[in-house]
């Protein structure tokens, strides 16, 4: 069957490799990918493990549908205790690595210990070698992948690697594959760097036996047709996620100058349509029909002539609106730099934007910034700070520590200007006009984030019948209200919870979030997931069983976080969300702030729907029902 992939436990300290079967009972309960990773992280780490120490484990996986006949089934998931937040470190990455790992015979890798010397893993058709990587240390992401292809004399190998930022333990370093695919959030590149692990290379020639191949092929075709029929897919095909910027900035949903505004005036230069001047085509991840990724050549400045891929909407904010820059060339250059050196575009942009607000307010001066003029809109300063953070040079060394630690060093009340939750900075979105989205970033298991629980379709004020179709009894029972105004607090807790489960299922199956109900209500979710799993793997899981598996895994992430010190206070927005109204935008977005009492009420409702107590702790009854209160931890 398709689910023959093994679990490999690799100890870099004693250079041992142990290969284990993954029991079907565990598959059914946690699926794969992020779901099963949560189970492994909880069981393979001791409480309080140093995120950058040998006792932290890094887990790499493909999803249950990885490499199979499902739309965009190439997603890879990486998990560890985060060196940025101290809580769950979790990030998802596209490209082609995960299917190759599965073709090589492995579905999950648990990597622990620390190699004595720089090393890489060579995973080739069921065998795993730990190899010397001293000659790769210091190389950037692109050089590393090219060198490994040459060394292994195979251009078809797929590589996960870190760049210089990961080697230098920048706390928001990424794990990369290809030119722009990034496991971007929570600093997993630093975990890899702390293990002296430069790269993981996979090559496999194994086949995956699909349970019902003809039916799976036909069903996948119908799903692809459905995806491609949406207007959102057509838009993504032409402009990628960059298309989002024009509309969100027009409304006033775009965080600007750190948090001083919610709209970048005269920001037309950042709009996706400007990519037509530099684009040389589009690319895609494994098994995807949409091809949302720009391929481009930088035309101006210090990096003119450089080929790169992306940028995404996140980089338009990180190196555009958040830092007050209106020149797309700055976004393109910084996007190239963070991908080359292996850093999270969002955290990098946030750190610079935060420093700029401090600079503008006189909290820090040229004496703090190595003489760099950090006024908003200084394109050259932004590009220089990206370089300095990656190299941990001067003031960049402080910013490389991430928001809470950097504020601890700077002091002077600087923490008040961070836009972070649980120690991780937010997307450049401004959620003050949208309580549902605010609840999502506050409660996300990995920190402020838009792709762990965001009910993105809430901003469309969709017709109620559409909301009923998406949220009512699909598949879990819900009898509460559904309200289609995005400024309402009513019924939003369920939308956040529903999307948590949906995104967890997507991450556990190893497919792309853009192919589910994220930006369109007309895309697949639990019913379709159930059918895909059955036709591909033969596992008969009802939509409700997939929902329960997602709930089980999300609850384990919560339990992990509580074990590491999480309290209700961590599920909280930055103070300025409550106290400072949005100054710009259309009437629906202007003058908005989050009502503290109503937010607390929404949080209570969210906990209650989860069967968590008032402190946010899962109840014994929930753990018993999910079967994770009593399970032995040595099953795998």
């Amino acid at each position: 069957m398709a689910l023959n992939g093994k679990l490999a436990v690799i100890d870099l300290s004693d250079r041992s490799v142990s290969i284990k079967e993954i029991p079907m009972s565990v598959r059914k309960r946690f699926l794969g990918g992020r779901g099963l990773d949560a189970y492994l992280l909880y069981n393979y780490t001791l409480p309080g493990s140093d995120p950058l120490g040998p006792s932290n484990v890094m887990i790499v996986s493909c999803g249950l549908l990885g490499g199979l006949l499902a739309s965009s089934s190439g997603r890879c998931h990486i998990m560890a205790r985060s060196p940025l937040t101290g809580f769950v470190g979790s990030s998802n990455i596209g490209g082609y690595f995960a299917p190759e790992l599965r073709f090589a015979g492995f579905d999950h890798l648990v990597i622990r210990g620390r190699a004595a010397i720089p090393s890489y893993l060579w995973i080739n058709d069921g065998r795993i070698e730990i190899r010397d990587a001293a000659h790769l240390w210091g190389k950037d992401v692109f050089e590393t992948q090219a060198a490994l292809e040459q060394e292994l004399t195979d251009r078809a190998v797929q590589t996960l690697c870190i760049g210089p930022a990961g080697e230098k333990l920048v706390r928001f370093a990424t794990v990369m594959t290809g030119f722009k695919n990034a496991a971007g959030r929570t600093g997993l590149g630093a975990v890899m760097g702390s293990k002296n692990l430069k790269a993981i290379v996979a090559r496999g020639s194994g086949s995956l036996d699909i349970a019902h191949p003809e039916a799976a092929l036909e069903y996948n075709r119908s799903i692809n047709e459905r995806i491609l029929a949406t207007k959102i897919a057509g838009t993504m095909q032409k402009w990628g996620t960059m298309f989002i910027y024009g509309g969100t900035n027009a409304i006033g949903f775009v965080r600007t100058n750190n948090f001083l505004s919610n709209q970048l005036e005269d920001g037309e230069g950042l709009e996706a349509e400007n990519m037509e001047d530099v684009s040389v085509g589009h690319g895609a991840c494994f098994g995807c029909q949409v091809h949302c990724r720009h391929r481009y050549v930088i035309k101006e400045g210090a990096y003119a002539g450089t080929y790169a891929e992306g940028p995404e909407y996140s980089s338009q904010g990180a190196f555009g609106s958040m830092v007050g820059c209106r020149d797309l060339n700055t976004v393109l250059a910084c996007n190239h730099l963070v991908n080359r050196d292996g850093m999270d575009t969002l955290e990098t942009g946030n750190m610079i934007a935060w420093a700029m607000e401090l600079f503008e307010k006189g909290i820090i001066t040229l004496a703090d910034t190595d003489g760099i003029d950090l006024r908003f809109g200084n394109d050259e300063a932004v590009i220089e700070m990206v370089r300095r953070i990656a190299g941990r040079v001067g003031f960049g060394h402080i910013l490389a520590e991430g928001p809470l630690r950097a504020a601890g060093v700077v002091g002077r009340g600087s923490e008040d200007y961070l836009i972070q939750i649980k120690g991780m900075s937010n997307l450049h979105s401004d959620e003050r006009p949208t309580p549902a989205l605010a609840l999502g970033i506050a409660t996300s298991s990995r920190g402020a984030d838009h792709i762990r629980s965001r009910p993105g379709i809430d901003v469309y004020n969709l017709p109620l019948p559409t909301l009923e179709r998406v949220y009512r009894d699909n598949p879990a029972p819900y009898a509460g209200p559904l309200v289609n105004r995005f400024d309402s607090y009513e019924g939003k807790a369920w939308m956040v919870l529903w999307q948590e489960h949906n995104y967890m299922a997507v991450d556990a199956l190893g497919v792309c979030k853009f192919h589910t109900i994220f930006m369109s209500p007309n895309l697949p979710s639990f019913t379709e997931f159930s059918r895909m799993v059955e036709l591909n793997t033969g596992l008969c899981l009802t939509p409700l069983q997939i929902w329960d598996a997602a709930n089980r895994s999300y609850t384990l992430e919560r339990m992990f976080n509580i074990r590491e010190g999480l309290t209700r206070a961590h599920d909280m927005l930055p103070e300025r969300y409550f106290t400072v109204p949005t100054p710009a935008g259309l009437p629906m977005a202007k003058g908005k702030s989050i009502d503290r009492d109503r937010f607390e009420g929404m949080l209570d409702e969210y906990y209650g729907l989860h069967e968590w107590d008032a402190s946010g702790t899962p109840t014994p009854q929930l753990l018993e029902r999910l079967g994770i209160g009593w399970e032995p931890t040595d099953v795998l």
Partner: protein
Amino acid sequence: MLGEEDTQPKERSREERDAEVRCLGCLGHFRPPSGADHADCPHCGASWRLTWLDAHSVKIRGPWKKS
């Protein structure tokens, strides 16, 4: 906002949907003239720059700044 009234929308074909935009100001649907670079919302009067995915499919790009 029109989004609230739009609780029983008529079924629209893909062609109709692609040819329409949704006003960012009032969330009402309208069909701009083919190939236009901007259009006014007939419901609230807001002016929008337009972007065309192809000859038949249009989206709002941003606000139209009247000179």
